[in-house]
């Protein structure tokens, strides 16, 4: 559970830091300021959806940290074998990195208001992301063909589990991507999709980092 605890203590530190700023030296019972001099209410000056995404990423991180914790605890079992990592995963990682880069470029284009580049960037990152998912399925097929079924060994089971959970998160992101791309293709103003593009970019970078960590964990399995 070490990994989950490290993550949680980091998160709690952030929460506490923010709350300390909100609460220390505040004496709510003495405050009676009038509206004119009210200095805001301590809310974050971000759109709510961005805060929402941030909270969701914390939840998702908790999920992945717990999976990795479980992986490491289960690895101590005597029956654990080394995972024959399918080579296609290297290719998939590169594709996901490219998808993330494409998202980043889309975000830049959206900020500058260039509709055509937003369109091409979104499509590029979407195609790359779907290729990544197809590549993951291909990796599953390779594992399966080589006789490494899900039940044969916990190392394989974890491989399927981790890639599936990550893939489902990416699919969720692609749903938002679909809606955004449909809007862009219908030719709405760039300003109307800028926020969605920014959210997608953050989410794609996050899923890239998660994938790289998971990949490293899978590679680092001991025999």
């Amino acid at each position, binding site marked *: *559970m070490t990994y*989950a*605890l490290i993550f*949680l203590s980091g*998160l*709690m530190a952030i*929460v*506490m830091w923010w*709350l300390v700023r*909100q*609460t220390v030296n*505040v*004496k*709510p*019972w*003495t*405050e*009676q*300021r*009038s*509206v004119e*001099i*009210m*200095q*805001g*209410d*301590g*809310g*974050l*000056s*971000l*759109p*709510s*959806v961005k*805060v*929402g995404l941030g*909270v*969701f990423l*914390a*939840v998702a991180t*908790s*999920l992945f940290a*717990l*999976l990795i914790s*479980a992986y490491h*605890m*289960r690895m*101590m*079992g*005597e*029956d*654990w074998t080394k995972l024959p990592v399918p080579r296609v995963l290297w290719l998939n990682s590169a594709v996901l990195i490219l998808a993330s880069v494409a998202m980043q470029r889309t975000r830049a284009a959206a900020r500058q208001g260039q509709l055509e580049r937003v369109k091409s960037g979104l499509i590029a990152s979407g195609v790359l992301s779907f290729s990544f998912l197809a590549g993951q399925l291909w990796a599953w097929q390779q594992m399966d063909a080589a006789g490494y079924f*899900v*039940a044969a060994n*916990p190392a394989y*089971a974890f491989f399927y*589990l981790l890639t599936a959970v990550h893939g489902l998160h990416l699919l969720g992101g692609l749903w938002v991507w679909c809606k955004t791309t449909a809007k862009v293709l219908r030719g709405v103003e760039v300003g109307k999709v800028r926020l969605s593009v920014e959210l997608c970019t953050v989410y794609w970078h996050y899923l890239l980092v998660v994938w790289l960590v998971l990949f490293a964990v899978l590679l680092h399995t001991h025999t």
Partner: protein
Amino acid sequence: MTSITHDESAYVPPAEVEEPELYHPKSFVGKYIWSQDAKVIAVQYAITAIGVGLVALVLSGIMRLQLGFPHAFSFINPSNYLQFVTMHGMIMVIYLLTALFLGGFGNYLIPLMVGARDMVFPYVNMVSYWVYLFAVLLLMASFFVPGGPTGSGWTLYPPQAILPGTPGANWGIVLMLVSLAFFIIGFTMGGLNYVVTVLQARTRGMTMMRLPLTVWGIFMATILALLAFPALFVSAIMMTLDQTLGTSFFMPALVSQGQHLNYNGGSPILFQHLFWFFGHPEVYIVALPAFGIVSDLIAVHARKNIFGYRMMVWAILAIGGLSFVVWAHHMYVSGMNPYFGFFFATTTLIIAIPTALKVYNWVLTLWRGNIHLTVPMLFAIGFVFTFINGGLTGLFLGNVPVDIPLSGTMFVVAHFHMVMAVSPVLVVFGAIYHWYPKITGRMLNDTLGKFHFWVTFLGTYAIYYPMHYLGFLGVPRRYYAMGTTVFVPESAQSLNEAITIAALIVGAIQVVFLYNLIWSYFKGKPAGPNPWRATTLEWQTPHTPPKHGNFGATLPAVYRWAYDYSVPGAAEDFIPQNQPPGKKAKGLEQALDASDLGAQKLDGAGTPKPIGS
């Protein structure tokens, strides 16, 4: 006030913060079924949770019948006794208490108390409810599948949970696990709403430190739930795979009923870690909203500001943080390293400190307060008693050497029910009596309420006090029937009978409460906007019950904290949070501030008063 300068760079929200695009329902279905109004969703959550809770209550009645009068009822056999135990526990903890406190009270109170028009993501909020309902239906479906619901105990420990011989090892357990996974997905949707609404949608002047403690409790509980539920999610998925695809995440190599199973090397202890990594925060997911609500009930009905508001907030935060490092105290009997146990015993005892602080503050709030023994107040005081009783036995069980002999006995059942079942349920009742007038516009019947309180309160003591004693005698929990032992005297059985009779009376009396809810909805005394003369924003709405959008044309601005009760010199004994400081007072106040008389403050009428009174 002259010392406060205008910092132009500081973020000052406009008069109406991010006016949300409210969903405007056109039909009955849009308004009450597929509703995106947090208040309607709250009622949907509450009705579903209470409905499924009644099922669990009936199950507990059947269990008590078996324990009090063994072999008298042919329809209870050992298998379905275990199934009833399991379903009762899981429904009560997750599908009733968690859903009711966060989905029910959270949805209703957060937007109203922080001064928002609705949750920030109303659509996601609606989906949250329907996913929750789906999870409930899946769980209920397990009563009707071959083999029935799982009988593995509410902790679902592998390997027994999925081995033949345990009731419901095929269909029941899978439905349970899948239902839990859906519950978590639904909850995450709702939880995002609760957290982001508190962070983002507070109205002008509503700083974090002016939030009522109810909101603080629900806020922190939601954060805990968002971070802890993934542990249950992970374990549910992994156990589902173990059951359906034959993986060995949790399943060791074993021989079952003479057959070698295909499992190999899995770790049941890993499941216990994951389960309790969720399971212990879960205790506080239920307790923190209860703490918050009870703080507000006591302040309102004792007409006094809450004692030590900042301490209360920090205690909530400390409990939330600590609740993640005590989980293994549920695993003392799993054969852990003694030093590991020592660590968790220490953290368990440390968490008693902020909890005790809260209890002292409640008692000090009552101290010399103008106590009105209304029904909500009775339940709040009943909670304080029960929580202290349950908490003290927790100190026993937190110590490894005491826990090991007691952990398999009824003592644990008694402790757990005092602290985690009766205490929060008393708060649920208190909260319903308190907020029902706002939700429906009518008061609940007072006489029926008092009758309900006294029977429930005294009845639960009649149930759980003797149960501690049974535990000391060594009466084991989870047993369908005792049989004969050398150490348990015959009289234990008569005690069990008495407990069963008390339990059936308490269970039956809840009908009075349900009757009161329904009768008062049609015939209750009209409540008016603010029957308890409370300060918080939900009582200041232009309409009762509040309409969609909550606050009419403009959102309220907040000038003070939530606890200005019995302020000396004020015209009334409460000052609503949105009441501006008086004109005359303002000039005086500035003069006072300028002359550095920091130790004085002014109330609405313009008279100075000592700080913190």
